[in-house]
């Protein structure tokens, strides 16, 4: 049984206020920060289960040495005891001064696994071996070479839209002997953006026109080119005005004829029914479909508007707006 399980069992038996006080103390002791260097303050060390058995065995050996009045048995017992003491230092050093930083920001749909990347940097010339990370039980095993950096990702499944904060994770090491466990709880202010669950809307009622019978408007009515504008990365290759470019003119993009007022607007208020969450889910599905079509589209939420455009950045901005709609932006 891991000592974490021990502490949980202990916690459930303790009175609630005591447990809260313990959590408060832990938070104060291990304050969250996007970048952490593991110092004495942050590291805990205690004999592991195997270590406790080892200490028990030392006691048995000591009794044998006493009973047999055997000095070499004494010497062996003391030697192993001293190995244990030395191992305390080595186990501690295997986490000490490690630098950890949260990197990247993952955005996912509910039901997926959000990844939380941690950049771990080993200072100096020592190899950090057999480090284990995890949320509850540490089961991701990594090594860091001398002076090297590695990136490790932890995964957590998410359910609700908005910012997801997994909170603290466990980092532990038993290297070299496994008789001691050195560990810390780290809160690197992790967060991941969770989009609404995309759900196909029941019926699409188009704002203004209603010229389309499908769920989504077909982009550009006909082949007539209305205008040219400067090429922007992300424009469809078939829309690029290659003829002009071949003549030595700057790269431009054809804009197919569709009047400004005819731009596709995905509007929160266009739905006649549905709760806020349902509407956000429908909009999410529409955003994905619109983006896949390569069309120009805009998004309207109550009190918020994203002008029509296309491309990945546009889509992500829209999804983020949907994810965070009605939420405190920082929480």
């Amino acid at each position: 049984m891991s000592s974490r399980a021990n502490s949980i069992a202990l916690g459930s038996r303790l009175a609630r206020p005591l447990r809260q006080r313990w959590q408060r103390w832990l938070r104060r002791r291990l304050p969250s920060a996007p970048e952490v260097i593991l110092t004495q303050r942050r590291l805990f060390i205690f004999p592991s289960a195997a270590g406790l058995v080892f200490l028990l065995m030392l006691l048995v050996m000591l009794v044998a040495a006493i009973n047999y009045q055997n000095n070499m048995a004494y010497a062996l017992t003391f030697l192993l005891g001293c190995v244990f003491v030395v191992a305390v230092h080595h186990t501690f050093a295997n986490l000490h001064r490690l630098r950890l930083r949260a990197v990247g920001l993952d955005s996912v749909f509910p039901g997926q696994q959000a990844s939380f990347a941690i950049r771990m940097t080993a200072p100096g010339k020592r190899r950090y071996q057999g480090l284990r990370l995890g949320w509850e039980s540490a089961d991701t095993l990594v090594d860091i070479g001398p002076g090297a950096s590695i990136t490790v990702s932890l995964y957590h499944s998410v359910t609700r839209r908005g910012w997801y904060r997994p909170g603290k994770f466990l980092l532990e090491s038993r290297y070299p002997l496994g008789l001691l466990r050195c560990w810390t709880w780290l809160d690197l202010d992790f967060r991941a953006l969770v989009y609404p669950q995309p759900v196909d809307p029941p019926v699409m009622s188009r704002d203004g026109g209603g010229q389309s019978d499908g769920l989504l408007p077909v982009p550009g009515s006909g082949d007539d080119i209305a205008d040219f504008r400067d090429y922007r990365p992300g424009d469809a290759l078939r829309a690029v005005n290659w003829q002009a470019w071949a003549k030595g003119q700057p790269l431009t993009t054809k804009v197919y004829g569709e009047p400004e007022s005819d731009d596709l607007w995905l509007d929160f208020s266009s739905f006649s029914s549905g709760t806020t969450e349902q509407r956000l889910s429908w909009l999410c599905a529409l955003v994905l479909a619109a983006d896949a079509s390569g069309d120009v589209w805009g998004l309207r939420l109550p009190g918020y508007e994203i002008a029509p455009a296309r491309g990945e950045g546009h889509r992500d901005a829209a999804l983020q707006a949907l994810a965070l709609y009605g939420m405190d932006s920082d929480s």
Partner: protein
Amino acid sequence: MKASAQLPRDALFWLIGSQLLMLLPLLLYLPPWILAVALAASLWRFQVYQGRWSYPARWARALLAIAAAAAVLVSFRSLLGLEPMVALLLVASSLKLLEAKSSRDGYVLAILGFFICLNIFLFDQSIPSAIYVLLCVALLLSALIALNQNPNAQAGKRPLGVSVGLVAQALPLMVLPFLFFPRIAPLWSVPIKRHGAETGMSDTLRPGDVARLGQNDAVAFRAQFAGDIPPLSALYWRGLTLGSFDDGTWRQHRARSMPNYGRLEAPPATVGEPLAYRIIQAPTQQRWLYGLRYAEPQNPGAIAISDFRFVAPAAVEFEMGYRVISWPGTPLEVDLPEWRRRLETEYPARRDARTRALVASWLSDNPDPVAVVERALRWFREQPFYYTLEPPPIVDRDFVDAFLFESRRGFCEHYAYSFTAMMRQAGIPARIVAGYQGGEINPVNGTVVVRQLDAHAWSEVWLEGQGWVRVDPTGAVSPERIELGISEALRDDASFLANSPMSALRYRDIGVINWLRMRYDAMAWQWQSLVVGFGGDTQIEVLKRLLGEITPSRMVLFTLGGALLILGPGTWWLFRPQPGERPPPAERDFQRLCRRLERRGIKRLRGEAPRTFVERVKTGLPEREARQIESEFALIEAKLYEPART
């Protein structure tokens, strides 16, 4: 640790290696089938690893365990005692290895291994054994390290290097508890070694016994004299007296047949110069100790016996050190009690008729006991007797007749046997003394090394007005045996050390080997007296020299100080500042500035560039302060971008 975690391959190999290594020295004391079990288990487990065989089924494992316990029981006829328990431990460890799957099993095996290491010391505490156990410990620690290394990482340090480093750091630290831990009395009595072959002399004498020792160059004991070493020919180390003759075998008198159970009631009045010495004796599994007559043990607990020997309170199971003072000139038992005269003259009348006739003829010539003794010695000298370790076997029931009149080839015990029998036939109180004679002086440290091949038997006869007098009939036949020692007396005898081709003693004529042999022996004496024999008076003496005065506070201070001194350098090395760890100076200055502003309630936002932050701060501050912060930040920027100029 997850119980389901698999036992890594490297850990398995280290465990197999350490298990076989630990087993080897114990095989000297255990039946060889234990090695077969260990090899079979290792092979099986290796084949499982290779994927060729599978783990034994649960019922097979249970069957194996029962069979192993039964085999131990059959081998030793008991499960009590040290040897059967060690055998059980080893077999259990082998079977555990066979079924080891998870890393938890690895921990169990390694921790069991440390305990097996301890058992090696219960049989042998010599320097080679200590080095060997250190090696075993390093291997077991390597197994633990392999359990905790990332099995996928190739670049990690080799486990053996790490474990040797750990042991090297722990060794000096170990000295502190070794010095300070009080050597308390046993908490309860422990199983003793009964089953192994007894080394050294036995407590009975039948023709042929001492010859077995003549092949053995193991050290029986070492002695260090406080003053000059007496000549080797005077070193008759008395072990035990054999005065009870029964069906051709000499034994000790039973304690019940003597008043006060054979204990010495009053020590004799000592005469002459005392001789002080210290002995460290190898384990014998017997109680008797060795000394030159008349010896008084200085150790508490030693028991003086009425035949002027002394014995240990319990069987000597480990190396034992004791101090003795001897008064060689002291007459022993000048007033012979009637019961002892009766006991020491008993000899069956029907035995050895030819010898009896010979002795009767001597008695009729001169009935004076002194004259009879001299007559007998002269007879040994004048008749064609030979000293040899390989006498022809004598199956005749009348051993003395057969030896004295037919074979006439033998060694000390044949002579002592026959001589004592003759004296008893003449009505003179006589007994056999078994012990060692002579030894080898190590010039390096002046100790006398007495080996099993120095085992000897001689006689003591009681003479009116003189008490018990030592008579050595072997000296009459082979004076070299007494004057020069057995290795000189048997210089050309092929049977000497015939079974020990590698014995360093065989090559004592080669200068370098002999020098090394003496050096090693001196080291062994130091080891035995300072390390193995540490405790009791030695401990108090050493602590007094270290601390001046033994008080709890001084002991605590010394221990803590010592630990700090020993652990300090290694710990500093482990936690020493690493290059590139401190942020550059400009960054440190900026962090200081941020902390100062934070105390005033202005917090830098996550990801906010330093310049942006400072501009934002400036807008919220009065003119003067804003200017000051700007100038400070300008300095930091200068440091950051033009480090050479600052």
